[in-house]
């Protein structure tokens, strides 16, 4: 059995990338809302990190959807997913969440950039000002729903896989939580990376805030991964087999121990602790840590998707 091609493999890496991008988008929006409300308040649009999040989130979610559509055997029929719904199907409900999420995402981004947008449109398209004023009236509602929708989107990426009863490793109640947590941290990492690439400074208060949230988040992720595999082992039977097949040896074993546990989780955890205690933040530290997190999450998606399909019930 080869690591990337085997009989029971149905969903390939495009699905992992789709799950990754959906998680990045959800996480970026989640942290953007947190940053605005707890750190920046007004004038949030001037922050490079908020700007990065507002670019990353829409691009990621749309690219993800694009990949999902391209991966269908009938890509031109994708509109049928939008027309026919099945309330029992996680994918169907997920597409619904994705659509509503995007509406609220764009409304929130519009609100963030209200000042510059209003200034620019004042003489040119005065009608836009009415629109932004209307949005501003519902700011709290929009923000609240955006937070809920981003969490739902992050969890959905896990539920999509845990709804597959034929694969004991994927049919696992911890999976949605694990994907939610790792999706949030990938969103934080992409905002940091995009932020320092734009006009953000590695010592800005946004970075301090995100790093402070990231430390417990990474610890939670480690606990969830541990629970995930402990649950499989204690369930016994094919579930235990699945856990051993995934972790034990070979290509995916390396990916897990070196790529995910080592580079993706321990690396950023150590760097975050180091940066918090020494309060020395260099451009390369922040960007490097963010890259490690992103690579770790991308590997985790692929690892779970592939090893999850290796063992059947």
């Amino acid at each position: 059995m080869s690591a990337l091609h085997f009989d029971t493999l149905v969903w390939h890496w495009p699905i992992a990338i789709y799950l990754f991008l959906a998680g990045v988008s959800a996480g970026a929006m989640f942290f953007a809302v947190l940053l605005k409300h707890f750190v920046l308040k007004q004038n949030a649009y001037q922050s490079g990190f908020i700007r990065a999040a507002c670019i990353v989130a829409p691009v990621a979610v749309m690219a993800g959807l694009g990949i999902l559509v391209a991966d269908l055997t009938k890509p031109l029929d994708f509109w049928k997913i939008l027309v026919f719904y099945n309330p029992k199907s996680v994918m169907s409900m997920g597409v619904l969440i994705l659509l509503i999420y995007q509406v609220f995402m764009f409304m929130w981004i519009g609100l963030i950039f209200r000042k510059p947008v209003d200034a620019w449109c004042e003489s040119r398209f005065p009608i836009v000002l009415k629109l932004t004023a209307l949005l501003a009236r519902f700011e709290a509602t929009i923000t609240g729903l955006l937070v809920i929708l981003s969490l739902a989107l992050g969890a959905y990426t896990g539920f999509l896989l845990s709804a597959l009863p034929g694969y004991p490793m994927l049919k696992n109640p911890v999976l949605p939580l694990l994907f939610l947590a790792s999706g949030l941290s990938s969103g934080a990492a992409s905002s940091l990376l995009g932020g320092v690439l734009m006009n953000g400074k590695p010592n800005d208060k946004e970075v301090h805030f995100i790093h402070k949230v990231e430390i417990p988040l990474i610890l939670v992720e480690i606990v969830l991964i541990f629970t995930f595999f402990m649950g499989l082992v204690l369930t016994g039977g094919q579930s235990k087999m699945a856990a051993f097949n995934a972790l034990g040896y070979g290509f995916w074993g390396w990916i897990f121990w070196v790529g995910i546990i080592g580079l993706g989780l321990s690396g950023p955890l150590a760097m975050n602790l180091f940066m918090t205690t020494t309060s020395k933040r260099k451009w390369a530290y922040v960007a490097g840590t963010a890259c490690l997190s992103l690579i770790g999450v991308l590997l985790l998606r692929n690892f779970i998707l592939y090893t999850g399909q290796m063992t059947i019930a």
Partner: protein
Amino acid sequence: MENSKRRFLKGTCALFAGATGASLLATVNASEGAKAESDIKYAMIHDETKCIGCRACEVACRETNQVPEGVSRVRIEQTGPFGEYPNEYYHFSRVSCQHCEDAPCVNVCPTGAAFIEKETGIVSVNAWKCVGCQYCIAACPYKIRFINPVTHAADKCDFCRETNLAQGKQPACVEACPTKALVFGNLKDPTSELVQVLRANPTQRAKVALGTRPKLFRILAKSGEVIL
């Protein structure tokens, strides 16, 4: 601020209430659908003790349902040989859709292209509605679904719903079987051959622990090997 917070809370509560209500309604509808059941529920038996592994079923199915080369709706899986010459024997088991009562493929399908026909209990695919996301293929615990290379839609055994059954005949594989190892019939008709055979023999269904409630029964032949 206080006001907008309250408005937000109210809005969210309403949303949740609405969502819960809608999903409750959906479940109620589903169980009502089950109550108003018809008196037909098709099932199949594969008597492995009669199967000689001739694969006439595979050929007949391909012809009748125009199944392209490279994919198949039914396969006979052969293991062995077991025993000593001259008493060697093989074991044959049928690999095809189990027509689950609680079908994972139907549950996960985003468009409803994978569906259970209410009148007959047959699990089938609406090829036009299918977008080819392959979610059902991943969800099926029996790994018998495939993408039809001609229609690009998910495909599998449908008890010949659109071919032989529609013409009032028995499924093609059943008709073709020279040893009458396949029995097809109505589970709800106590006089049917299917029910008679089910009553008279110990039968087995695959992976019942998953809660799929399959409707493909097998009368086991001696397996020839011990797998722990």
